[in-house]
C-alpha cells in the first residue's frame, strides 16, 4: 500500500477516473488516493456522460452511506416497482429479459437502497462502492433505480431502446452515469471486478466491489480464472453475488451444464461462501451488513438462491419462455395487476 508519489502535477487534481491527459502536466501523473476529493463530478473519459443528474454546482454532492435504514416492506415494494418498470421498458422496446430481471429484483433493491455507498451526484466519486452487472441483460432493472437515485433524469428512460439512447438493453459505462463498467458478454465482469478490487488495494481506498453474475454465466471459464485470482490475492474487498435461479437462457442449468455444488466450487477456489434466499430482503440485508472487513483475507461469494421470474406466477412456471420475450397487451395487464396487488397489500400491512 505504499505507492510512491513520484511528482506532483500542476493544476488539475488528476482523479482516479481521469483519462490520461498527457501534455497537460508534462507527462507526470500521480494517483489521487483515499482522502483526497476531486473537484468535478464528471465522466469516465474525454467525452463526458451526457448528463449528470444530481449534481448542483456549489453544494458538495451527498453521499448515500452503507447500511442505510430501510424497512423490509420498503425493499420488497421497491423490488416489485423494479418489476413494473421493467415491464414498461420492455414494452417500449419490444423485446426484453423479464424472468432474468425478476430474479434479481430484491438484490437490486437491497444493494441500491441499503447496502452500497454511493454518490449519485458524483457518479465517478473514487470512493464509491462499485457495482458490476455481470448478467448485463437485466439492465432494465437498473435503469429506473439509477434514475430514481438521481444519476440522470427520469426522462432518459423514455429513450430506452432507441438509437442514441444512453440507456440500453445492456449497460454501457461510456453512456450512462452510475454504470461502473459495461457488460453484455457473460463471464467478463468478475475479472473486471477483480481488477477494481486490486485497484482499491493499490490506491489505498476502502471501496467494495460487488459483481452480480448469473448462474449460467458461471459456465464461462473466465469466471474461474477471475475466481482463482481473487482467491489468490485474498481480495476481501470483492463480493460476487450469484443469482442462482437455476436456469440459463434455454433451460435448467442442471440439465444444460451443471454448476453445482456451487458452495464447494467457490470455497475450493479460495472464497468465503454465504448462501441466502435471494428474495428474502431481510436475509440479503443481514448478509451484506455482515460482510467481513475489506482488509479480511477472502473474497465473499453470496449465493443468492432465487427463482427465475419470481413475482409473476406464469413466468416462475416457465422461466425460459420469458428469458427473452414480449408480453402481449393482455398478458401485460395481468402481470401488472398481479404485481400491483402485492404492492398494495404490502403497503397496507404493518412492518
Amino acid at each position, binding site marked *: 500500500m505504499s505507492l510512491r508519489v513520484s511528482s506532483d502535477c500542476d493544476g488539475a487534481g488528476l482523479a482516479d477516473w481521469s483519462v490520461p491527459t498527457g501534455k497537460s502536466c508534462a507527462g507526470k501523473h500521480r494517483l489521487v488516493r483515499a482522502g483526497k476529493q476531486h473537484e468535478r463530478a464528471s465522466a469516465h473519459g474525454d467525452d463526458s456522460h451526457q448528463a449528470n443528474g444530481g449534481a448542483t454546482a456549489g453544494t458538495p454532492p451527498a453521499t448515500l452511506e452503507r447500511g442505510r435504514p430501510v424497512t423490509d416492506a420498503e425493499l420488497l415494494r421497491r423490488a416489485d416497482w423494479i418489476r413494473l418498470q421493467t415491464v414498461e421498458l420492455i414494452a417500449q422496446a419490444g423485446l426484453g429479459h423479464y424472468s432474468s430481471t425478476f430474479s434479481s429484483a430484491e438484490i437490486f433493491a437491497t444493494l441500491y437502497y441499503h447496502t452500497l455507498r454511493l454518490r449519485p451526484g458524483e457518479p465517478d466519486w473514487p470512493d464509491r462502492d462499485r457495482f458490476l452487472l455481470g448478467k448485463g441483460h437485466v439492465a432494465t432493472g437498473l435503469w429506473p433505480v439509477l434514475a430514481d437515485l438521481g444519476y440522470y433524469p427520469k426522462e432518459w428512460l423514455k429513450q430506452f431502446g432507441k438509437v442514441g439512447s444512453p440507456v440500453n438493453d445492456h449497460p454501457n459505462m461510456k453512456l450512462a452515469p452510475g454504470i461502473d463498467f459495461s457488460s453484455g*458478454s457473460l463471464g467478463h465482469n468478475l475479472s473486471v471486478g477483480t481488477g477494481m478490487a486490486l485497484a482499491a488495494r493499490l490506491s489505498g481506498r476502502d471501496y467494495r466491489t460487488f459483481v452480480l453474475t448469473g448462474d449460467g454465466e458461471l459456465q464461462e*471459464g473466465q469466471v474461474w480464472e477471475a475466481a482463482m485470482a481473487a482467491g489468490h490475492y485474498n481480495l476481501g474487498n470483492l463480493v460476487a453475488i450469484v443469482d442462482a435461479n437455476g436456469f440459463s437462457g434455454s433451460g435448467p442449468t442442471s440439465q*444444460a451444464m451443471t454448476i453445482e455444488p456451487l458452495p464447494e466450487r467457490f470455497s475450493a477456489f479460495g472464497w468465503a461462501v454465504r448462501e441466502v434466499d435471494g428474495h428474502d430482503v431481510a436475509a440479503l440485508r443481514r448478509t451484506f451488513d455482515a460482510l467481513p472487513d475489506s482488509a479480511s483475507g477472502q473474497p465473499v461469494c453470496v449465493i443468492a438462491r432465487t427463482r427465475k421470474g419470481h413475482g409473476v406466477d406464469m413466468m416462475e412456471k416457465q422461466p425460459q419462455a420469458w428469458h427473452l420475450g414480449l408480453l402481449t397487451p393482455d398478458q401485460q395487464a395481468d402481470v401488472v395487476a398481479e404485481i400491483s396487488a402485492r404492492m398494495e397489500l404490502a403497503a397496507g400491512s404493518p412492518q
Partner: protein
Amino acid sequence: MAERKMVDVFSDIDRDTALKANPSGYAITELAAEDERIVTLTADLSNVLAEFRAAFPERYIELGIAETNSVSLAAGMAACGFVPYIYSMAPFGVLKCAEQLRTDADYNHLPVRLVGRLSGLAMGYFGTSHYAVEDIAIARMMANTTVVAPADSNSVLSLMRSTADLPGPVYIRIAEATDPVYDEVPEFSYGQWPRLREGTDVTLAGHGMGVGLAVQAARVLHDQHGVSADVYDAAYLKPYDEAAIVASASRTGKVLTIEDHIEIGGLGSIVAETVARHKLAVDLKQAALPDKDLEVGVPAELYEFYGLTVAGVVARALELVRGKGEN
C-alpha cells in the same frame, strides 16, 4: 413502428416463426439424416436446434455458456470421425474463440463447422458486445477455413449442403431476417459468386443481407435512374471470386460493396486488395459499418442509420456513377 421493434429470432415464444426464420436449423436436420457423423453443439442456444434435437436427441450436445470449450471439444470430436456443427451467436462464436478456431480446428484441418447466428448488427438492440462485425476479417485469416455468408434462407440451405463434405473447417455466417433473394435453392460453385444481374455502369457486390439490398437497389437504379448495375452474390468470402471481381471491375470501373461488417477486413477489403493487385484504376465505395464506435438500437434503425438500406445503396451507387463524394 412495428417493424422497428426487435424481431425475436430465437426464443421459444413463437416456435413456428422461429423455425421459419431458422433455415440453418432446418438444413442441419436434413443433413444429419444423410450423414451420421454430424453432431450439433451449442453454448446455451438449443432453441435454434429444436427440430434437430427432436430428430436426433443423442447427437445434440449442450455445452453451457462456454464457447471456447465448445470449439476445442468439437475439434476433438472431429479428430474421432465426427462432423460437429457448433451453433453460436456470431460474436461469441468467432471473436471469443479466434484462437481455438485457428489452433485446434484450422491448423489441424478438421471438419469443424461454426454456424454463426445473429451476425453483424442482428443483435443491435442488445448492444455492441453482441455485434459480430469483424468476424469475417478474423475467419479470413485462417488458411484452411472456408467462409460463407448466405443471402437468404434458400442460400443457407444451398451453402450448408454444398459445404457439408468439405474436409476443413467452415464458417457459415447467418444474416437474420433477410428478404428472399432466391426463389428456389440456388447452386453455388465453390468459391464462385453468382452473377445476379448483368450491367455495365456499376458493380454491386454484397454478402448476407447485402445481397438483397444490391438486387433491390439495382432494380431502382435501372427503373428510376437509367443506371445498369452488375450484381454479385459474394457468398464466398474465403475463397473469394477473384475472377468475378476483376472481370466486373474492368467492365464497370466502379465497385460498391455492401456488407453488415466493418469497413476493414471484410468484402470491402477483399475487393480493394484484388483491384490493387490487378492494377485496376477503379472507383470504390463501401456500404458498411464505419471504423468507429457503433450505435445501439434495433437492427432496422441501425441499418437506416448506417445506410444499409435500398435507398442508402442507391444513393452510394449514384455517387459512384456520377463521380461524386469520392474519398
